[in-house]
């Protein structure tokens, strides 16, 4: 049983207009076996949270802590975080020239496990995982993400999730840009990884439709860099009906606080 704990996290970025605070005190705890949905309108800081957990250099942590089983994640380099068991399925996976998928997957697996995977079973595992995600076998010889469609890139992210077996997976809008079939395939992959019982999941999404296939136990609503409401799956249902409008700035801080209080009651 592992715990990923985020406490009062403040994150800012440097812009041309100066420093801008994006996360304004976020606290969240995820344990093995749990699925947490982070929902919120565009620009609310959801992706910033994901990238900060992974250690993207663009984001400066100005306050708060992230720990994995008590270890200080913020003190780790990007690759150390991955080796410690954190995985970020990226919203916009980049194309990496010159590196074939096969070579990349094996190198990453070796780095994460601290030893090279047994060649025979590894090749079989990769093939099987690719098949389940309906990824063409010839992708193995192509360069990482090079020329892949948006949907293919997302499937390849989930392929890695299944192969690397992280302690915690952060899925940053993995559902965006997917058609229904692709969404199902990707969700099945996440559910398979989850079913092994050794992973906690943070599912970041703007829309509720992925929640038809991946069932969170906890839903957190993000607005303007803060969690404004928390609840169970029923909160997602409400969001589906009402949208994010009631959290809009016009609704006022008082009503947001009231909503948060109501949710916690």
């Amino acid at each position: 049983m592992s715990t990923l704990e985020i406490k009062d996290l403040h994150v800012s970025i440097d812009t041309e207009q100066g420093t801008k605070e994006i996360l304004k005190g976020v606290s969240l705890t995820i344990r093995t076996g749990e699925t947490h949905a982070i929902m919120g309108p565009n620009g609310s800081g959801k992706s910033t949270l994901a990238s900060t957990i992974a250690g993207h250099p663009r984001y400066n942590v100005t306050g708060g802590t992230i720990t994995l089983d008590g270890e200080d994640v913020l003190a780790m380099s990007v690759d150390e975080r991955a080796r410690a068991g954190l995985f970020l399925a990226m919203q916009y996976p980049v194309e990496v020239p010159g590196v074939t998928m096969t070579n990349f997957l094996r190198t990453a697996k070796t780095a994460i496990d601290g030893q090279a995977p047994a060649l025979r079973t590894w090749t079989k595992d990769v093939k099987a995982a690719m098949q389940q995600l309906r990824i063409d076998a010839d992708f193995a010889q192509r360069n990482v993400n090079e020329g892949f469609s948006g949907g293919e890139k997302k499937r390849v992210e989930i392929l890695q999730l299944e192969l690397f077996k992280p302690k915690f997976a952060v899925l940053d809008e993995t559902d965006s840009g997917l058609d229904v079939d692709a969404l199902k395939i990707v969700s099945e992959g996440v559910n398979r990884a989850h079913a092994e019982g050794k992973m906690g999941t943070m599912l970041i999404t703007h829309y509720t439709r992925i929640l038809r296939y991946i069932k969170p136990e906890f839903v957190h609503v993000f607005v303007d860099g803060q969690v404004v409401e928390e609840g169970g799956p029923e909160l997602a249902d409400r969001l589906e009906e009402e949208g994010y409008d009631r959290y809009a700035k016009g609704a006022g801080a008082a009503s947001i606080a009231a909503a948060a209080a109501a949710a916690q009651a």
Partner: protein
Amino acid sequence: MTAEITTEKARIGAPSIAGFTEEGEGLVSAKVDHSHNHGVTVMSSRAERLTSFDVADFALPTGREEEWRFSPVRALANLLSDTATALDPEPAAAFTVDAPEGYLRTPLAPGAAPRGTVLTPADRAAVVASANADEALHLVIPAEAEPAEPLRILVHGAGAGRRSNAHFVLEAGANSRSVVIVEHTGAADHNGNVEVIVGEGAKLTVISVQLWEDDAKHLGQHDAQVGKDAVYKHIAVSLGGSIVRLNSNVRFSGEGAEAELLGLYYADAGQHLEHRSFVDHNEPNCKSNVLYKGALQGKNAHTVWVGDVLIQKQALGTDSYEKNQNLVLTDGCRADSVPNLEIETGLIEGAGHASSTGRFDDEHLFYLMARGIPEEVARRLVVRGFLNEIIQQIKVPALEERLTEAVERELAATNS
């Protein structure tokens, strides 16, 4: 200027060329020049370029000429002058040949065939090399011979700034199978022409390896004529030297032939590595493939690739493709990449070109590191993977290994 990230792709098949009739009449020559050069006169066809054995026909380049505009001509003054090889106290370059007995023939004087039957100098460097190489090294692979080991010509420069002129004539007899490695080490101002005759049905690979010391300069024209049903592969590997500029040209003397022009280069700070290729599809039903890949790192690392393909009117059934890819590893580099495709007939299998210059940047690094891969490993992974596509075409294991190690050493220098 730092390299722009560019990707250009085109694939032209016979049916897709607008305005081409089935009889192939009324054709316009399609000229593709992606260099976006302004104020420079572009010749209407590559075929019109001057070739001559007479030094007087080639003025000293100023750097404004189409074929010299990317080159640091001022730094090349010694190589472009009509100067004999420096012999005192020792020749500027030593040549060692490793070939089966009887393959090495009596050297060829200028005008002694087959010298001069395939290679006519096409620029100032080649003409002064030709004029000042009194004896051309002549290697003949007999018909049907299949030497077990690659043939080797080692060129070792005796000292930086010392002028060397050389001319090699390589003949692959009909239906022979062979590999010739020309390896350059040491330092010199080396001007070297290589003339290649590939007989009918022969298979010849010529690998020119530039492992010069940092202060060497090297200009060269490598011309090949590929016979009926023959397969010719030319691989240029340029890692060392301060300036290297190689022209690899090929034309055909029969149908059914194939030519592959490959290149790998890795430019460090201040290094100028330039590769030009020209495939002249002058015969029907021949195939050509050009692929040059380069990495750049460090201030003022400069690479140039200019790839010309001409599909002449009579070259029906031609299948041709050319591609250049550059990987920019640091700021301050410049990669020029110019594919030129001229097509005079629509009745071809296909003709295409692609050029891309990409950066290995922080986002690539983040992606790989986010998968647990340490920074150093990530960098190596990308560069090695990128260049390996060429190295694995060499198919001489010992050389592949040496070049892989040489690339690793270049990589290690990125971080120093």
